């Protein structure tokens, strides 16, 4: 077993545990903590897959901005920041559904060709060339959506003040 493999398995285990913990803990602020770790952990996986730009992006956007935003949301909507959520039952049906989904996905995944494909790496500059060349429409679309989202978010937040 190669070091990369070992590293991946460890990171994967961490990702699953942190994700689960983020959803299950009853203290919302702890959730933010767990999800932060989760994002950082995924960022490491991206590095492992030789996608350093995305790893950085993950760190910046998710581990940074999104986590802060979520924390901010909790702070605004709560009178006391550290308060436990009411216990919610886990529920048989959702569990069953998610287990079925997992099994189904596993089956789907194993049905894919398991021949080890060649590992390819990319330059960051190649990615940026692609993004602002052939992938231009994607970026354009993203910017449009962001603009619309900006307007929408402002509207949503403003409306109640009047």
């Amino acid at each position, binding site marked *: 077993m190669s070091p990369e493999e070992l590293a991946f398995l460890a990171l994967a285990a961490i990702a699953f545990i942190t994700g689960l913990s983020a959803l299950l803990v009853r203290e919302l602020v702890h959730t933010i903590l767990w999800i932060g770790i989760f994002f950082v952990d995924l960022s490491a996986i991206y590095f492992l897959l030789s996608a350093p730009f995305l790893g950085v992006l993950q760190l910046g956007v998710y581990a940074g901005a999104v986590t802060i935003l979520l924390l901010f949301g909790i702070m605004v909507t709560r009178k006391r920041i550290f308060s436990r959520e009411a216990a919610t039952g886990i529920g048989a*049906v*959702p569990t069953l*559904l998610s287990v*079925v*989904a997992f099994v*189904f996905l596993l089956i*789907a995944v194993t049905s894919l060709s398991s021949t080890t494909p060649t590992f390819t790496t990319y330059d960051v500059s190649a990615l940026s060339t692609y993004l602002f060349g052939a992938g231009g429409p994607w970026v354009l679309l993203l910017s449009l959506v962001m603009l619309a989202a900006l307007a929408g978010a402002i509207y949503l937040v403003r409306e109640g003040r009047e």
Partner: protein
Amino acid sequence: MVPLAPALAFVSISFVGRRWPKGEWGGWIAVVAAGFSMVVSVLIALGEMGAPGTYTDVSYTWFNLPGSPGAFPNGFRLVIGTLVDPISALMLLVVTVVGFLVMLYSIGYMHHDRGLPRYYAELSLFLTAMIGLVLSDNLLEFFLFWELVGVCSYFLIGFYYEKPSAASAAKEAFIVTRVGDVLFLAGIFVYFATYATSGPAGGWAANGFLFAYGNAPFLAGVLGGNSFLLTVAGLFIVAGAAGKSAQFPLHVWLPDAMEGPTTVSALIHAATMVAAGVYLLAVTSLFLGFTSLDLLVIVAIGGFTTFFAATMAVVNPDIKRVIAYSTISQLGYMVLAIGVGGAMLGLFHLFTHAFFKALLFLAAGSVIHAIGTQDLFKMGGLRKTMRLTSAAFLVGGLALAGIPPFGGFWSKDDILSAAVQAAEAHAAYWPFVVLAFAAVYLTAYYIFRVWFLTFSGDAVRDPSLPAAHEGGWVMQVPLIALSVFAVVAGLFVFVPSFQTLLQPFGVAVAGIPPTYTSTDLALSAISVVLAGAGIATAYALWGGGRVYELAPRSAARPIRQLLLERYYFKAAYDAIGRRGIYTLARVADFVDRYVIDGTVHGLERAMGAVSDRLRRAQTGVVSDYAAYVVAGLLFVFVVLLLVGPYVVNAWGGG
């Protein structure tokens, strides 16, 4: 050209008739048109007499579907045309002569009625259609005019439409004959389909399906001489003829049809339209052919009806109805004649019968016109005030009874001797031949019962009736003319040039002219003796103004009741029609309204209930919706995963 004149009369009277100040104007137009047709018909008949067996056919395409492979390789072609041959010339004479005389008589008889333009228009239309029927050169055209005369009959029976009994009699007549008509149509289908799918290519494509002398051997050849199909087709034709000619068991409508004016009864329900059934049988037997089973059925129907109808005539108190039963009975003789292979003998009887039966009806009409009732038991002693009518009725009665030398004797006698000959070959015919002989006795009895009740005696039995008087000259001339015909029509058979009209193939037909061997003479003697016995019985019971009453406890009373109720046939048909079919219709209507629509409404309510349940699933909680989405997606995926490969294979691989 023959039917054109009455057709023009029909059109002109129906469009402008109401504007004319007097109904008679239309009547005169109709009379002139009918007279014109009569003259042309006589010319045609003379032409046929001059050249025996002439067969002239002129036809036009009516309906043409070009050929295509498969069922109709030579296309589909229906034609309309006129066929002039000896027998159509004969029928033409009957139709136009009686038609003209009845039209003339109508001017006087219908004088007091309202709606005369309608009457003359319908009568002219009838004459047009009847002439068209006689001149038809194929079965379809025959059927077309067949239905048209049926409709005219319907309207004319219902001429006094304010009378509910007239309206319902008209309906009954139409529906009962319609039963025969649709079966006739089925028969046409068999012949047409046989001919269209395997007919001679050139002949079919060029001429369509015509009455042609070659058809009978052709059909017998294609279908096999005694085949099931040919038999069935023949039976369908027989059913159609039975409906039109009021033969058992479709006889019920004719007595009720007497609700129409007497002139109509004379023309349509005695001389022409009802004879169309016989004509159809004759034409079919000549051109298309019957199988032996068909012939047995025809003999059975004819012989039985002859007797059956005569029994009902014996007790009836209504002067017109007695004559109507006698018509049914006489038509039975004609049918019998066709069944025993003497189609031309049947047509000859049709010829003589048309005259003497029209005479009887017109004479009866004269009586009704004079005293305004049809009840025999109210009449009496009219011989004194209505000498001409009484004499005319007597002539008609003698002709009907079959007393030589009057018309009915010669034709009926021929039929009976032919029937006996045939029965010697086919033992199964015997019962019906015997019935036919028995009917001779009954016929003489009932018609003289009518004569004695009406004309003999001293005075009218019901004093409230108006004083009797003869009608005007327009009514007397037809009576005289028809009396002459009634006497001499039977003798025509000895005229060689007239014989050619009864020899459609231009060759001699058995019994034309009648041969008198010793057997024939014996049979004639029997029938004359039977007729004389009938007259004697009538005189004994009713002569000199007597009225014969059955003893109160007589065993004959129930029989009389049975006969008066017409063997309960009408009641039974009414029950089938009203109780049976109408009840079925009510049930079907109920099913339609409540079961089918109820199912629809039930579905609607069920949908409502289901959606009401489903609505509860809408909790409004986002998570629940998400659960539905996920479950649905997963379901689709799983199904695709499990079934997908098979589907892909089934579609031919992807």
